[in-house]
């Protein structure tokens, strides 16, 4: 298992919010989903995932409930709150701005 790419400070929050924005997911599923969609580039360590989830919950961006998984086990599912959705929109806009700015700089240098 390769070393996970270091995530830019604060982007883990955004990844989590985005990942659960469509439907509630448990921690394992969130980690897997991020891994899949990023074609295995982003590997979320459990050591950062769960503290992040608990922090987001405390901040009121996400809420947790226990439900059964497809395999019939009881697991803790996280879903976005309304405040969390607003927060996600804000962070997405921020991210867009930031990444396009970085693109600009990087491309100018190559030219």
């Amino acid at each position, binding site marked *: *298992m390769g070393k996970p790419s270091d995530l830019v400070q604060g982007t883990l929050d955004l990844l989590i919010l985005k990942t659960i924005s469509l439907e509630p997911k*448990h*921690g*394992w599923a969130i*980690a897997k989903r991020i891994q899949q969609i990023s074609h295995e580039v982003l590997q979320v*360590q*459990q*050591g950062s995932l*769960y*503290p992040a*989830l*608990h*922090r987001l*919950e*405390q*901040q*009121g961006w996400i*809420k947790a409930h*226990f439900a059964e998984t497809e395999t019939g*086990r*009881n*697991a*803790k599912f996280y879903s976005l*709150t309304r*405040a969390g959705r607003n927060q996600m929109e804000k962070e997405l806009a921020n991210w867009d701005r930031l990444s396009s700015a970085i693109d600009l700089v990087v491309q100018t240098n190559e030219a």
Partner: protein
Amino acid sequence: MRWLEKLRLRGRTLFRRGRVEQELDEELRFHLDEQIAENLAAGMTAEEARYAARRAIGGAEQIKEECRDMRRVNWIGDFAKDVRYALRILGRSPGFTAAAVLSLALGIGINTAVFSLINAVLLRTLPVKNPERLVVFNHRNDISYPMYEDLREGNTVLSGLLCRFTIPASMSTAGQTDRISAELVSGNYFQVLGVEPLIGRTITPDDARMPGAQPVVVLSNGFWRRRFGSDPGIVGKTIRLDGHPMTVVGITPAGFQGTEVGVSPDVRVPITMVRAMIPEEVEINSRGWQWLDLVGRLKDGVSRAQAESALNAIYMHARERELGSVFKGIPPSAKAQVLAERLRLEAGSRGVSELRETFSFQLWVLMAAVGVVLMIACMNVASLLLARAMARQREIAVRLALGASRVRVVRQLITESVILVLIATGASVVIAGWGSHMLAGFLPEGRLPVALNLDPDFRVLGFAVIVSLVAGILFGLAPALQLTRSAVAPALKAQASLSGLRGSLAFRKILTVAQVALSLLLLEGAGLFMRTLGNLKAIDIGYDRENVLLLELVPWLNGYSDDQSTRFFEEVIERVNQLPGVRAASMGSMGLLGSGLRIEGVHVEGSSTSQGEETGGWINSISPKYFETLRMPLLLGRSFTVGDTKTAPKVAIVNQAFARRYFGSSNAVGRHFGIGDVNNIEIVGIVRDGKYKDVREKTSNLVYLPFEQNLDQPMTLCVRTVGDPGKVTAAIRREVRAVDANVPIYNVRTLETQLDESLSQERLVATLSSWFGAFALLLAAIGLYGVLAYNVTRRTNEIGLRMALGAQRGGVIWMVLREALLLVGMGVAVGVPLALVLARSVSSLLYGLKPTDALTISAAAIILLAVGAVASYLPARRASCVDPMEALRYE
């Protein structure tokens, strides 16, 4: 809405801890299981799958702890844990806990006690309406009632002016008689102050319209609680004050003690009831009876300066009228003096107080002293904590190694300190309450017992809290930082922890040196003050102080002419002399260690006066038998006799200082000199020098003149009694009243009390500073003992080795002793220059020695060295009893 949800979550974490923990467990286990399932699906064996999954997850406990931290309320749980742990730790070493708590509680307690006293005497504002608008008068107790009325009615600058007079009284109800203090007040007293009654009504102007008409009394809150058990039914009942029935009409609110700080009258009576309360036949409407104390309230928009000049205009006018009519017998020189007097207004928000005038500086000096005591106490506790922390170094190293953060460990240690401070603060409240009353007991009692409001107010409580906090930080933080700085690995090894320890031990030694230095300051202070008091007590005042009663008479104020006054004095002396229990009685214009001395220019033929020396003499006009009464030795010549009348040749008796000053070594008896505009006075005798105004004074030139030839007033009647003067006081008063009941008697006291009171400041400072010095010494000794004892334990095997190699017991003892003396010596070396510099700031409180007095400072240093030697005795003995075999096996 978000905050509501947040609050719910925090609450859940706090109060449903078990549930939250269980969920966290489940969540992480689920993750682990999924990882295992995935690994199995990838083709691993069951064991491989589990192992790989665990490795992928990493430290489950650390993740959990991080998740808990994210919940934000973790610190509350941590705090509760810290507190429980700290209590357990403190409980496990009761000796240490007791020593630390006791040092701190005493330190904080006496600081708060002294501050309570300062607060009560110097800082508290009167609990009345708008106290900042009150003004008090520098003329204390010397305004007549008619003068008061002139000032009250004539002014347009005050919204109110009250007068008051306090006296001891006796009260009887239901067959029980108590000695109490009473205050005679003008009818507007409560109105001017803006004080409402708790129950019933206050005294009103209607109560003070006619002399003797309204026998009503208002009880003070404290007296009502103390004496009548807060029974509201007392209002409307009758009590007897000095034998006169009076109706209780009301109770004052709690906290109100009147306008004089240090005096708390139990009852207040309309001033018009004065005849019932004062044994002399007082004529309230007489301008000769000058006795009242005034307090005014400024009108809005009027400044104190404006009020002062407006009131002085009225005062001067009234004075001139008085001198033209009732006081017409007063000689011109005295008249000028009376006319030169002015009223001066001072801010009255804190009331008036003789204590404040006398003791301000002394109280601050004592505050500084107890501040130093507290510093020593804090150092002791810091040293104790350090010693204990060293013993716990391994425990802390283990905790650091197991992943506790440094902040977390420091927090734990600080929690322990905070708990110590809290317990100590609690105990100090008790000590402060008890201590402040004890300290107040050292204040000199005047005519009435000292009664201060020592109840803690916000200022005292704030002070205690701040002092405790500062103390806690002072002694708590240093050890905690010191401890966590030490490296983990060496501390874990059994004996290799010396590097960390050595740093702490050095720190403890520095603390000990500082303690010794600070103790030296206190000892030096105590020594200087004790010796000052001793010097003052040992002063030879030049006459016999025992069994002498003094009282003042001013018949001028009753309109007496000089001749009438002379006859009055002669008759009083004759009558008092015939009383049983009286050895001798005579009069002098000198107040004897009080007021009443007048200085006059002296001219002597052939004497040089150009050397810039004092060219005058104090004048004391006396009756015959004055020297006999006071037992002042007449060295040469004769005493005055009844023959030295107004018309006889002018004669004088002078003291040694006068004779030396003007006549050198030649015999002064028979020589002539002049005083003021009187010439050709013959010296007929020389008496021994004495102290006249104050025991601290340098001996002045004094001239005694026969009072018939040089009448002055007030005159002080001096009565030497056979036994206790108190037994004949009433009889003496009776004799004076028998001559003329209208002449007021002022200032009755014994010479002994007069002398005692003049030393009350020195006594207060000397007594208290030596207590504080002793306390500081004890603390420093404990600190030194702790360091030495620890050091001996630490060096047990070294000592054992030395003894195995042939070191003698004496040598071992000397080794420990040398260390003690070195520490004390360093402390003394630091303390001596500091003490010498600081002593200069209290030089105004010293008498008969310099602040740099060598004897005092060396005595202080020797005491410290001796105490250091005593403190080191036990550790030294233990070191010398080390069994070499035992010590070497110890490793």
